[in-house]
Each structure stands twice: as structure tokens, then as C-alpha cells.
């Protein structure tokens, strides 16, 4: 008893479980069909978690979900995998591939993904065809796709295959109509095909009063016309008109788009053709006009419009007035004319799209759709790597439609596509046409700015210059100016950078960018040695940033960002002032900098600059105080100059031993120092001043032996003469300067004057009065402003006396 109950419970439990997941799976299928693939996936996963045994049905549902998500390629792959899976593999076999292919094909068709749809229909029909409405509709859809691509033979094969299915019955009527239509299409249909099409149409007409009936009547009449049986065609069309009107009314009541699908469109059109053939032009015009007005959306609309227009022209040519307007529906017909081409284009079937576009463009060359079509056709040619045709189209678009915004966009799209396709030369050609035909287009500055980014060097700068020149009021002109300025700055072309920054700063509204630009402007002037303008800009920047720092609500971040600019601006102000010879101001500025930015990386540099400026001002004690900051622990780059300047200041303040010692520290530690010879010179002077003449001569002789700079050599030569003790040696040193220094050099000329002057007493001492007179004469002549005239005159008098004595002594000689 217990055992039976347990078994019953198990069975009941299992049944309940099976029932539960089947319901859930149906729910998944329903959600997929309704277009909720995401929800379907969630429900499926939940079901599989609860009922792992439902996995058996999951692969098919997963594929359906993929299809609903329009992931057609992935779904097709899954169907193929499912079809080939064997028992025992991890992938469950799919038993129902046909219905999946059909679902995929229909969904892809609705989504206008025609290549996917075609491929799926092909797979579906390869596995056979069923005698149901779904298969017939699939045959119609597939056949239409094939016909649109011109694959008539393949379409015919499909129709034939479907019509061979046994017990097909009335379901086959749509296929029969399509097949009949196919059989009579083309330039010269075969008589046998016409007969077969006629039979198909008659069979459809016997099946009921519906759209297919109407279509069959139309095709049947076309067959009669092709057979030159105009009277028969006219008679049938006239007699069937009432029945077709009934179908039209039913469609209208159902809310169907009768202007698009009503069989009256084709019927009336063909009736018009029959009347025209019979010479009843007025009656024909009425029919054509009716089609145009009432069924302009149908496939018959454009032809009806053309024929009505031709008849209207005919009547007007006879001097009659025809009060009908054939332009009202033109745009719809035009749109339809481009539709096929456009579909091919969006399916990326460019080779097929191109002739379709040309056909439509020659029909509607300058309508509303034309520019869009020209754009798409140009893109097609670019994708087909046919630059000649692409150029032809683009030049035409730009020139002929220069007043249309869309034409400008078309050229831009062409340039873009050419770039995408790596056809760079063609892309630039397109952009050149764009600027040629649409120089004032709203996007022109932005486009030029973007193109500049794709170019290098001179070409890039040329684009920026064009923006500035042609679009001075555009925001891009400011950006281009900025780019030109920064570009020159990075290339260290500072005079050019300064010119661009000057213009750019006025146009820049972003305070941070303006700060950076002002600083770069000042730096450009500094690097160009234009100290005055550099100083002005550093001052402007410092003031502006200080003002900004004091303004209401300034953020900490802004203060942090601005601080380095204030710091550097102030430091370089000191540098510029020093260069401009405004040494006192330079000292004050460096002092202010040191006080304000005590932890700055420039503070030691500022101390050094301040100290050297103080030496220039001969404020040696203050200078020594400034150099006191530096000691052995200081960085060499600061310590080297500091030791030199300190040595100089100590010399100037008479602290010779300290000077010698300080300079020794520099010379012994860094014999390769840039200050070596200058330090030697000062040290030589200190030695001399300290009475250590031989040390002085040694130090100065080092300079004369190893230095190469003329000025330094002559300075050292003069100091050597002063340090030497033997009159002849001293005189030799002075004369070397007097004879070898460059009198045209403003720095060396005073050295010559000093050397000449300091030679004079030595001449007396060495009893060479004539040389004294000669050199004093040169001194007076070449350096009239030298001064010391009294001293010179006294020496000249003494020399003359000496000379007279020497002459008298000479005369006394036998």
C-alpha cells in the first residue's frame, strides 16, 4: 500500500512538473513571437533552472529568440549546427529546421535584411515545400526578392516547385499570380509562356473574388495586349470593372491602403492604354488621370502620370485647354522611382544600386529626392572603387545644387566615405569640391578644422590659416589661431608663435587657456630676447592672476592651477628687468619673489640672480648676504656661480684673502667650470692686491696660456702687466694689449687706452721718451675722452726733456 502510494505520488509529481515546464516553454515561444526576446530569454533560463529536463526543447527556443533579436547570422549558424548534431553530442539535435528557416526568413524579410531572408528561404525550399498558406506566402516573398535582383530563372524554379506540391488547392493562388506575372515579364515573352500565364490567370479567377482575382484580371489583360488582342482586353477590363470596384470598396472598408494595392489601378491603366490604342484619346486621358489621382502610390502611378502628361501635351498642342494638374503627386512617384535603388543601396548591393539610381535620376533629375539619390550613388561608386564616376557625380551635385544644403552634406559624406575606404586622394578631391561650391556652408570651418587634424606640417598650418582668413568670425578661427600659435611654440619658432599668440589671446574666453597662452606669449618674447615685451606680458599675467585670486568664489583648484604661472611670471620679470638694465628693479623683483615663493624651485636661482644684480649695482655687502644662502650642500649648478660672485664681491670689498680662498674652492673643485677663467682673473687681481704678485702672475698666465676669448685674454694681459714688478715685463704685457686688442670692439677699446696710459711711466723708467711721445700721441688721438690729460702732459714734458738730454749727449759724442 505504501509502495503504491509512493509510486502514485512520483507519477503525479512528474506529470505536474512536465505540465509546468511545457506551459512555461509555450510562454517563451509566445513572448518570442510577440517580439519580446529579452523577456523570453529570462523566462527560458528560469524554466531551465527549475526544470533541467526542459533543456531538450531549449535549442530551438534559443534560436527563435536569436531570430526575434534580429541576430540572423548567429541564428542561421545555430540551425545548421542543430541539424548536423548527433545523438550523444552536447548539442541537442533540432528536429524542426524547416519551421526555423521559415521563421528566420519571414522575420528577416520584415526587417528588410534581404540577404539573410534570401539565404533562409533558400534553405527552407531546399528541404521541400508544404501545401500550406505559410509556404505559399514564403514562395511569393522569396520569388519577389529574386525577381528584384533579376534572378528570374531562380524565381521561376521556386514557383514551379511550389505548384507541383500535391493537394495544394486554393493556397496556390498567390503563387500562380506571381508566376503568371513573371512569365510575361521581359522584352519579348515566349508565346508558350504567354499561354501558360493565361491559363494560370484563368485558374486564379475561378478561385474567388479577392486581390488575387484582381491581379489575375490585370495580368490576363496584359497578355491579351501582348498578343495584340486589344479589343478582347478592353472588353474584359470593361466587364470586370464592376467586380473590381466591389473588391476596391471592401478594401476601403477594411481600412487598407487602396491607393497602393487596389486592382483598379492596373485595370484602369490598361483600359486607358486600350482606349489610346483605339484612338479614343480623351477617354484614355480620363483613365490615366484617374489612376494618377486615385492610385498614384501604386506601381501604375508613374506610368499613368507620364501617359496622361503626354496626352495633355497633345491636346494643348491642338490649342485645347486641359484643366488637370499632374504635378500634385509627383513627389510620391518620384520617391517610388528611387525606392528600389535605395533598397539596394542600404543592402550594400552597390553594383546593382548604381544603374537603378541612374535610371531614376534621369527620370527625376532635379526633384526633391535627387540630391539624396546623388549622394547615395556617389557613395556607391566610392565603395565600388570607381573614382571617376564618383567624381563626376560629386562635381555635378555641388555645381548644379549649390543652393541646397543637402548637396553640401552629400559632398561631405562622399569625402568621409572615401576616407573610410582608404581612398585618400579621392577624399581630398571631394573636400576640395565641397569648399569650392559651398565656401559659406555652416559646417565649413568645422570641417576644415577637422581636416587639418588629418594633415601634417605645412598643409595642416595651411588649413588653419584658411580658417582664420575665410571664417574670421567662426569659433574655429580662434581655435585655429591657438593651434598655429602652439604649433610654432612647440617648434621653437618663437617670433611666429608670439605673432599668433597676440591675436589668439583676444579671442580666447576660457580663463585657463588664456593664462597658458599669455604665459607662452611672454615666453616666446623672452626666447626671442624681446625683453621689453616679455616683461609686459609677464606683468599682465601676474596682475590678472592676482586679481582672479582675490575675486569672489574662486576655487581652490583654480588657485592651485594659477600658482605656478604667477610664480614663473614673477621670476622671469626679474630676469627681463636685469636684461633690460633695470637692475635695481630686478633686485626688488627677485627679492619679492624670494619672499613670496620661499619653497619654489626657482628660489636659489632668484637668490643667485639677485646677488649678481647687486654686484652690478656695486652693493657688494648686500650681494655677499645674498650669496650666504649657498654652502657646500648647495647644488653645484648654483654653488659654482655663487662662489665666483662671492669671490668677486670679497675682492671688491678688499677682503682679498677670503676672495682667493673662495675662488680656490671653485677652481680646485671644478676646473672645467664655465667660470674658471673669470674666477682666475678675479683671483689674479686679488693676489696682486694682496701683494702676492708671483701668485697673481701665475694665475693670470694660466688664462693667457689656455683661454681663447680675445676679450678675456686682453683683460688678463692688462691685469698681468699690473701684477708684474719688472718694468720691462710690465711694459711688454701692456704693449701686447695695446697692439693686439681690437680698437673697434667697444669692450676692448678701453683696455687699449688703459694699456697705453699705463705704459707711459714705464717708458720714462726705461728711458724710452720717444715711445712715450708716440703712445701718448695715439692715446690723445684715438681716445680723446680718456681723461688724465694733466698726468699725460706732465709725462710728455718729462719725456721731451729726457729726449733733449739724450740728443745733447749724442751731439757731444765724437
Amino acid at each position, binding site marked *: 500500500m505504501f509502495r503504491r502510494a509512493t509510486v502514485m505520488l512520483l507519477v503525479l509529481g512528474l506529470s505536474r512538473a512536465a505540465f509546468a515546464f511545457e506551459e512555461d516553454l509555450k510562454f517563451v515561444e509566445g513572448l518570442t513571437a510577440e517580439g519580446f526576446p529579452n523577456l523570453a530569454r529570462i523566462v527560458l533560463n528560469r524554466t531551465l533552472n527549475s526544470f533541467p529536463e526542459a533543456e531538450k526543447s531549449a535549442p530551438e527556443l534559443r534560436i527563435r529568440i536569436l531570430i526575434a533579436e534580429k541576430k540572423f547570422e548567429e541564428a542561421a549558424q545555430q540551425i545548421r549546427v542543430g541539424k548536423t548534431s548527433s545523438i550523444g553530442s552536447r548539442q541537442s539535435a533540432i528536429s524542426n529546421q524547416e519551421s526555423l528557416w521559415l521563421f528566420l526568413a519571414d522575420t528577416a524579410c520584415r526587417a528588410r535584411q534581404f540577404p539573410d531572408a534570401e539565404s533562409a528561404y533558400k534553405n527552407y525550399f531546399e528541404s521541400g515545400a508544404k501545401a500550406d498558406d505559410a509556404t505559399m506566402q514564403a514562395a511569393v516573398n522569396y520569388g519577389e526578392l529574386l525577381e528584384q535582383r533579376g534572378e528570374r530563372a531562380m524565381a521561376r524554379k521556386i514557383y514551379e516547385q511550389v505548384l507541383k506540391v500535391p493537394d495544394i488547392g486554393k493556397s496556390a493562388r498567390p503563387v500562380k499570380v506571381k508566376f503568371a506575372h513573371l512569365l510575361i515579364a521581359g522584352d519579348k515573352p515566349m508565346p508558350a509562356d504567354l499561354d501558360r500565364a493565361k491559363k494560370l490567370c484563368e485558374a486564379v479567377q475561378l478561385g474567388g473574388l479577392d486581390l488575387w482575382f484582381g491581379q489575375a484580371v490585370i495580368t490576363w489583360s496584359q497578355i491579351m495586349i501582348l498578343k495584340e488582342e486589344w479589343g478582347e482586353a478592353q472588353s474584359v477590363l470593361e466587364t470586370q470593372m464592376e467586380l473590381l470596384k466591389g473588391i476596391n470598396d471592401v478594401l476601403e472598408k477594411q481600412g487598407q491602403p487602396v491607393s497602393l494595392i487596389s486592382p483598379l489601378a492596373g485595370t484602369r491603366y490598361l483600359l486607358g492604354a486600350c482606349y489610346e490604342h483605339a484612338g479614343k484619346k480623351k477617354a484614355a486621358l480620363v483613365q490615366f488621370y484617374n489612376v494618377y489621382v486615385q492610385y498614384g502610390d501604386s506601381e501604375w502611378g508613374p506610368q499613368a502620370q507620364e501617359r496622361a502628361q503626354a496626352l495633355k501635351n497633345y491636346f494643348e498642342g491642338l490649342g485645347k485647354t486641359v484643366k488637370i494638374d499632374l504635378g500634385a503627386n509627383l513627389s510620391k512617384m518620384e520617391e517610388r522611382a528611387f525606392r528600389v535603388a535605395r533598397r539596394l543601396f542600404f543592402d550594400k548591393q552597390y553594383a546593382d544600386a548604381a544603374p537603378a539610381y*541612374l535610371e531614376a*535620376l*534621369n527620370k527625376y*533629375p*532635379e526633384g526633391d529626392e535627387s540630391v539624396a539619390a546623388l549622394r547615395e550613388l556617389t557613395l556607391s561608386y566610392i565603395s565600388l572603387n570607381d573614382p*571617376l*564616376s564618383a*567624381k*563626376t*557625380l560629386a*562635381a*555635378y551635385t555641388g*555645381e*548644379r545644387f*549649390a543652393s541646397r544644403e543637402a548637396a553640401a552634406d552629400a559632398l561631405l559624406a562622399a569625402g568621409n566615405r572615401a576616407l573610410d575606404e582608404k581612398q585618400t586622394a579621392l577624399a581630398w578631391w571631394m573636400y576640395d569640391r565641397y569648399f569650392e561650391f559651398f565656401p559659406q556652408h555652416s559646417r565649413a570651418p568645422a570641417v576644415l578644422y577637422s581636416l587639418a587634424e588629418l594633415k601634417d606640417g605645412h598643409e595642416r598650418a595651411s588649413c588653419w590659416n584658411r580658417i582664420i582668413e575665410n571664417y574670421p568670425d567662426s569659433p574655429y578661427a580662434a581655435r585655429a589661431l591657438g593651434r598655429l600659435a602652439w604649433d610654432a611654440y612647440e617648434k621653437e619658432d618663437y617670433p611666429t608663435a608670439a605673432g599668433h599668440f597676440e591675436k589668439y589671446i583676444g579671442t580666447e574666453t576660457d580663463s585657463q587657456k588664456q593664462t597658458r597662452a599669455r604665459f607662452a606669449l611672454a615666453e616666446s618674447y623672452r626666447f626671442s630676447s624681446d625683453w621689453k615685451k616679455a616683461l609686459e606680458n609677464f606683468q599682465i599675467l601676474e596682475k590678472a592672476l592676482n586679481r582672479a585670486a582675490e575675486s569672489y568664489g574662486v576655487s581652490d583648484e583654480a588657485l592651485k592651477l594659477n600658482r605656478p604661472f604667477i610664480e614663473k611670471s614673477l621670476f622671469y620679470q626679474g630676469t627681463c628687468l636685469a636684461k633690460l638694465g633695470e637692475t635695481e628693479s630686478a633686485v626688488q623683483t627677485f627679492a619679492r619673489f624670494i619672499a613670496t615663493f620661499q619653497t619654489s624651485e626657482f628660489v636659489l636661482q632668484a637668490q643667485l640672480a639677485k646677488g649678481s644684480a647687486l654686484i652690478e649695482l656695486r652693493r657688494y655687502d648686500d650681494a655677499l648676504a645674498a650669496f650666504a644662502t649657498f654652502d657646500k650642500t648647495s647644488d653645484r649648478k648654483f654653488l659654482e656661480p655663487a662662489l665666483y660672485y662671492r669671490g668677486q664681491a670679497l675682492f671688491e670689498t678688499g677682503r682679498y684673502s677670503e676672495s682667493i680662498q673662495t675662488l680656490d674652492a671653485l677652481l680646485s673643485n671644478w676646473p672645467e667650470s664655465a667660470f674658471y677663467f673669470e674666477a682666475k682673473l678675479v683671483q689674479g687681481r686679488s693676489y696682486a692686491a694682496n701683494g702676492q704678485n708671483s701668485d697673481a702672475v701665475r694665475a693670470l698666465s694660466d688664462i693667457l696660456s689656455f683661454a681663447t676669448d680675445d676679450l678675456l685674454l686682453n683683460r688678463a694681459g692688462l691685469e698681468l702687466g699690473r701684477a708684474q714688478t719688472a718694468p720691462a715685463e710690465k711694459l711688454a704685457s701692456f704693449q701686447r694689449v695695446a697692439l693686439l686688442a681690437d680698437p673697434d670692439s667697444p669692450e676692448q677699446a678701453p683696455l687699449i687706452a688703459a694699456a697705453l696710459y699705463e705704459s707711459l711711466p714705464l717708458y720714462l723708467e726705461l728711458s724710452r721718451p720717444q715711445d712715450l711721445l708716440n703712445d701718448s700721441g695715439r692715446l690723445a688721438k684715438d681716445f680723446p675722452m680718456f681723461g688724465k690729460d694733466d698726468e699725460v702732459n706732465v709725462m710728455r714734458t718729462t719725456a721731451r726733456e729726457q729726449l733733449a738730454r739724450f740728443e745733447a749727449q749724442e751731439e757731444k759724442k765724437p
Partner: protein
Amino acid sequence: MKKFMILSLLFAAGVTGGAPFVINSAGTQIDGSAIQSAADGIVLLTTLNGQTLTFRPGTYRQAFADKPKEMGQVEALARNGDLAGAAGMLRQIKEQYKFLGWDQRASLMLARVELAQKNFKAAAAEYETLFAAQPQFETIPAERANYMQALSGSGRTKEAAAMVDADIASGSREAAARAQVVRGDMKSASGQYEEALLDYLRTVILFREQTAVLPEATYKTAVALKKMKNPRAAEYFQKVMKEFPDSEFAEIAKGER
């Protein structure tokens, strides 16, 4: 070939016959059997009943003589390739039939004959005289295109270019198509073969409705392609022969293949 073109030009000018008539200032047509004009614009019409009516300038809208016999001579000279002779005869007709309709017809034909002889300056001058007297001729795309060629050939490139560009940008479809061919010629003459090709090709692929211009544009497309050593030249020569077998360009294309 040249003869063929000239004859077609002459016939295109509309050489028609008919009795002389005067349309008076009230718009009434008065038919006659003979008509004469004087240099000062006075027209004498002999009516069908033998009466002579005198029309002073301002009293008639239009006077028209019957077809001058000299027109037949012009046609004969053109047929024989004597374009200079035809031009001389046309000048005579212009003088002789002043104010009688045929002066303007002769002027139009003379402009075309001068152009065919590459007397560009004379052709341009003749067109200018004609356009001044009959402004409607300046709106006819074929005559505009001829005038542009005359301007271009006589070195008045700027004037020609301005007209050509204006017609291409905003003229009628026919005017644009014709101007494109003229511009193509101008560019080709200055060695800009690709630019010329773009104009010819544009006409061929986008102006199919301009059947009067298509044979020439197609042929010139082929020639430009050939100059650029593009293998598609053969395709276009073939196209000229196949699609326009009756045109004079089909004849030249045969030799160019």
C-alpha cells in the same frame, strides 16, 4: 563629315518658303505677291490684287519675303563644301532682305557657317548682332552653346567661362548639357583631360533626356578616356556606334576604335 554637319546646321536654321506678307501694327497679316524694302526700313508690299502698299517703320510689326532664290545657292555651296562661298552669299542675303525676315535667318546661318570655318571672331560678332536684334535667340541653348564656342575660340575665355558656368549651374537641362560639352572642350584644349572627362561623362550619365547632345558627349567621353589611356575608351566608342548609329559621331568613332 564636315559637310554633313554644315548641312544639318543650315537645315536646322529653318529655311522655309511661302508667299510674302506684312503684319501691320494692329496685328493683321496682309498677304502679297511681291515685297521690297529700303535701307531706311520702308517696306513696299504688292498685294494679291496688284495694289502697292507702303509701310513706314513703326507701322508694321513684321515683314516677310518669300524664300530668296539665293538660299538655294547657299545650300548648294554648303553641299559642295564651299563654306566661304556660302558665307559670302549669306552676307548678300542679309543686305538684300533687310527688314524682310530673311536677313535674320541669314545672320543665324552665317554665324553657324563662320563657326564651322573656325572663324571664331566673325562667328561671335555675328551672334552678337543677331542677339541684339532678336534677343530670343540668346535663350536657345544650341545657339548659346555655339556662341560660347565662338567666344572661347576667339580668346574671350573669361566671357565664355562665365556663360558656361552660369548655364551649368542654373540653366535649363538642355542649356546645362550643352554648356558642359563646351566646357569639356575648353578644358580639353588646355590639357585638363580629367576635368574635361568629368564634364562629358556627367552629360552622358545624367542627361540622357538630352538626346541632341548625347552622341557628341558620348564620343568626347571616349576620346578623353583614350587620351588618359583608360581602357574604358573602347566601351564608349562602341556605345556611340551602337546607340547613335545615325549620328555623325558614330562615323568618326569607327575610325577611333
